[in-house]
């Protein structure tokens, strides 16, 4: 995986990243800010803990950077 590679959040159950972590539906405000299923992310680098840093744009048009658990990444993201 190289910096600049694009991936799609392709969760098997269709939930967002935050939703999946919480295990239940988020509030409307937090749902708006979640990394939703179908979102295209760009791989940046791995941080010191080995989590993948990805950049993406949320529903408000805000540029975000989020750390993704590599195990979750392997099963919930596919190449764009």
């Amino acid at each position, binding site marked *: 995986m190289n910096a600049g590679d694009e991936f799609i959040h392709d969760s098997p159950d269709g939930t967002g990243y935050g939703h999946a972590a919480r295990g239940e539906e*988020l509030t409307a405000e937090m749902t708006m800010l979640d990394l939703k299923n179908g979102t295209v992310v760009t791989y940046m680098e791995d*941080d010191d803990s080995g989590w993948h*840093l990805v950049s993406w744009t949320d529903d408000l048009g805000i540029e975000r950077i989020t750390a993704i658990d590599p195990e979750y990444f392997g099963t919930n993201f596919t190449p764009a």
Partner: protein
Amino acid sequence: MPLLSAGQLMQYGEKQALEAVFRKTQSPAVAAVYMALSTSAPSGVLNSTDLTMAGTSINEYATASGYARQVYGPANATSASPSVIYNTAQLTWGPFTSAPGTCNWGICCDAASGTAANAIAAFLLASSRTPAIGDSLQAAAGTGSAGVGFLCQV
């Protein structure tokens, strides 16, 4: 050691600014800088002499929580005295996959990750925040007014 009690440049930022203004060294190349979140208490902990994000007083959120530093994206410094600089867009961290604790400070540094990043400035949050699992944490865009966004002045 000088402890921070309000937003101000850290030692690294002070030295960079002075050496650039007084023509001792060339300013660093234009590049993105990043806003980190710190759990250090509002007073008596964060030390301005910590040069990098490895400093023992920094106490940054753990990345194994969905957390990552966000691009600060400041406007040009204002043509006023005191001159100020601030973020032009909302900053949003998360969503968090585990509870990262309570943050009290934003710390601007010069890398998206890693403890080797230089600590440039620290900003005391108007109120502490404790995001829950699944939450995202938002900070307002600056306007140039004190208390709105991450505003820094020399």
